[in-house]
């Protein structure tokens, strides 16, 4: 009848071999090792930490406008426009700068400054009396926010790399705006995670203009009831172990995290831990100008505060002018000095971050889950296989072979695509076993019906497959649609489930329709005309 059984059989064997390869690759160093190399385990099986962070990109806008306020003041001075005040008047709108008090004679000079290249990212609106409002363009804001998010991802990636975590995942998180997903396999000790969390912080050095105060009220009183627009109140302790106090700091920082070229922990001449740092040339020039004017021996001695994640960590007097290399000495331990240097070296984050979601799984729980999952899978599979043999006899062998091939193809698919196996994924495999055998049951029941109606073995088989095909397609498509939606809307573990379910169903269509058919046809060929079919 020209069925080309030999060709089809060869094809099936080839598929089996290819997918076996998918599972183990080229076997080296033992079977379990090869499998482990090809199939990735999810965090819930391997143990590890899953974090979702949010980057407060709006802060980057605030920092950018702060810097532009300082620059505008300088530019206006240089253009000879005196008496103008530049500032941000509305804290809820950090993208807006207001220039007021421009003397009438200098209006045109001021205008030419505002329309210069330096402020092209702003929309300038000028009223008749010369007051101007600069609002950062929407496109510029979006651009800045995107760049901030990207830089944050890069910085976090570098930090985590330097801490020696194997195969971390750091990427944008789709569920919300400006969110980052971080996965640290093998790190499940919450304190170590805390340590890594500490290291992703925003650092800057600010000039101290007032304080320390004990309460917010005291701070306000000392400044005549209102905080000047160019300053901010920040909590913190001036040295390790000191109680929480409040400082008045200049809003615009003297040194940003990105200005540090290098930072190394060390010890000063008294053996106390310190940090030796190098700034970039441009930052060095700025810093020199500031420190020279405010050394202890100058007319206006000043202090600087090191601010970490919006809290004051260290306040130090300026001993001498610092250009681009200096020392930070404070009451920190050697470990703290090491951590702080690492942060400075890898560049601080351009904006602060907060934690939205944390999940950690310990390695013992992960190992127990794998163990239990495999036992459940084997138990389920055995139950199904034994039943099929008892109920369908010869055809049951057919179904069981198809089942095993299903499993090989499913795992092979996962090996080829580098998919991650999670605990719900193992459940998906188990479910596929149950649902997969459904196709065989559909076909076999139909064949039995046809046999009962008096058809010959060959016709019954042919009719059975033909009628069952429609239903098999319908049922598989609906479940695959279900799996696709789960994949689109699911997170890690649920995605793993969707993947094994979908792959399993595809594998099942192949085995149920082609493999079972070929086995039946081969058996029929060998039988005498009119002999009974074992089903």
């Amino acid at each position, binding site marked *: 009848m020209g069925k080309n059984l030999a060709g089809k059989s060869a094809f099936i064997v080839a598929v089996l071999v290819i997918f076996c390869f998918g599972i183990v690759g080229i076997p080296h160093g033992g079977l379990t090792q090869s499998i482990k190399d090809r199939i990735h385990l999810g965090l819930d099986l391997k143990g590890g930490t899953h974090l979702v962070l949010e980057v407060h990109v709006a802060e980057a806008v605030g920092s950018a406008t702060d810097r532009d306020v300082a620059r505008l003041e300088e530019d206006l001075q240089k253009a000879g426009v005196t008496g103008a005040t530049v500032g941000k008047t509305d804290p809820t709108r950090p993208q807006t700068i207001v220039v007021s008090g421009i003397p009438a004679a200098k209006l045109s000079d001021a205008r030419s400054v505002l329309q210069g290249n330096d402020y092209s990212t702003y929309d300038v609106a000028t009223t008749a009396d010369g007051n101007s409002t600069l609002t950062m363009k929407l496109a510029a804001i979006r651009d800045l926010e995107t760049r901030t998010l990207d830089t944050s991802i890069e910085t976090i990636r570098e930090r985590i790399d330097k801490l020696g975590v194997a195969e971390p995942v750091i990427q944008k998180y789709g569920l919300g705006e400006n969110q980052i997903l971080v996965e640290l396999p093998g790190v499940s000790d919450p304190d170590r995670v805390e340590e890594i969390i500490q290291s992703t912080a925003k650092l800057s050095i600010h000039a101290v203009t007032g304080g320390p105060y004990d309460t917010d009220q005291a701070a306000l009183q000392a400044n005549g009831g209102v905080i000047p627009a160019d300053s901010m109140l920040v909590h913190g302790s001036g040295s390790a172990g000191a109680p929480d106090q409040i400082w008045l700091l200049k809003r615009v920082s003297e040194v940003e995290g990105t200005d540090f070229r290098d930072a190394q922990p060390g010890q000063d001449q008294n053996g106390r831990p310190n940090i030796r740092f190098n700034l970039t040339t441009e930052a060095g020039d700025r810093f020199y100008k500031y420190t020279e004017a405010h050394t202890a021996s100058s007319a206006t001695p000043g202090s600087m505060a090191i601010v970490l994640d919006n809290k004051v960590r260290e306040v130090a007097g300026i001993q001498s002018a610092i250009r681009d290399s200096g020392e930070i000495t404070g009451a920190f331990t050697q470990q703290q000095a090491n951590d702080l240097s690492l942060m400075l070296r890898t560049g601080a984050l351009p904006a602060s971050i907060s934690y939205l979601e944390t999940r950690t799984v310990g390695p013992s729980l992960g190992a127990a889950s794998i163990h239990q999952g495999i036992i*459940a899978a084997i138990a389920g599979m055995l139950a199904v296989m034994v039943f099929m043999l008892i109920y369908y006899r010869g055809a049951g062998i057919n179904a069981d072979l198809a089942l095993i091939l299903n499993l090989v193809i499913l795992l092979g698919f996962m090996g080829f695509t580098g998919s991650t196996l999670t605990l719900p994924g193992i459940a998906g495999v*188990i479910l596929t076993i*149950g649902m997969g055998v459904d196709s065989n049951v559909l076909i076999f029941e139909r064949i039995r019906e046809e046999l009962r109606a008096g058809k010959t073995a060959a016709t019954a088989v042919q009719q059975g497959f033909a009628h069952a095909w429609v239903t098999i397609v*319908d049922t598989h498509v609906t479940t695959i649609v279900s799996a696709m939606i789960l994949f689109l*809307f699911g997170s890690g573990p649920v995605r793993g489930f969707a993947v094994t379910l979908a792959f399993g169903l595809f594998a099942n269509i192949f085995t149920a329709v082609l493999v079972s058919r070929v086995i039946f046809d081969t058996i029929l060929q060998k039988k005498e005309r009119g002999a009974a079919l074992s089903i």
Partner: protein
Amino acid sequence: MSLELFRTTNIDWLGKKWYFLGFSLIFSVLGVLSILFWHHIPLGVDFKGGTQVRVAFDQTPNEDHIRQAMDRAGVHDARIQRVSDPSGHAANKVIIALPESTATDQSHDAGRQSVESALNANYHDSHFTIEQVEIVGPVAGMQLRKQAGLATLYSLLGMLIYLWFRFELIYGVAAVVAVFHDTLITVGAFSLTNQEITLTVIAAILTLIGYSMNDTIVVFDRIRENLALSRRESLHDVVNRSINQTLSRTVISSGLTFLTVLSLYLFGGEVLHGFSFALVVGILIGTYSSIAVAAPMLVAYQDWRVKRGKSVSLPAGKRAKV
């Protein structure tokens, strides 16, 4: 002779529809009552937010001592629950849960730290390790709720459209009603047994929606095939016959899937417990609903159209004598 459990059955399924309705009503109402008044819908930390710490003790933990340890450290709103696991492996494990207020954006880790330090300082019965921590802040909780809701909505919509396309609208509606019935009873079961609904449980519920649809489609396919073959039979008889013909396949298939899911429930471990419970209940109810809810609804819709005096347009698009 071959083993055949359902050679030729001739049960009047549609005739029993009032028993089915009664049965479904009892379980649905029980579930709804529990959801409204008793345990409500127990939400996992994924949706409710907060901190959840799974602690494994070397010896059987004493829950009262744990609570005292918490209280002494000033942690008063902890919920302490023993881990349930049919295989008995998780006998020495406890889940300590703190409400959403402990997982704010400012102090994300505070809840976990307070639990750990409370146990370290005040619980001396045995050594313990923290096996798993889940902290979900308010923003993340809201995102996950939205995600679960959208997934369920799109799933049902997708099914409805597919069925409308393959069959006719009334088939789709009947199937969706059956699925809704299944979901209600499953969620009711969670409420009655006070088990938490987490994201993986939602995944299981979506899967059982797919499975229930599957099962219903098998019956509908046979109804459609039989309607095309016979023009003189009433819809009532065709549906009964279709169910009887597919009974063998339905029971065996569902039975086998149920076996695998039961294996998961018994041996799959405590982490998958909620997930496998949803599947166990769902597969039973899903199979039942194809025969007891979807098929009778088809016929009921037909009878309703007849009563209204409309000509009978059989769902397969063929006209027939009434």
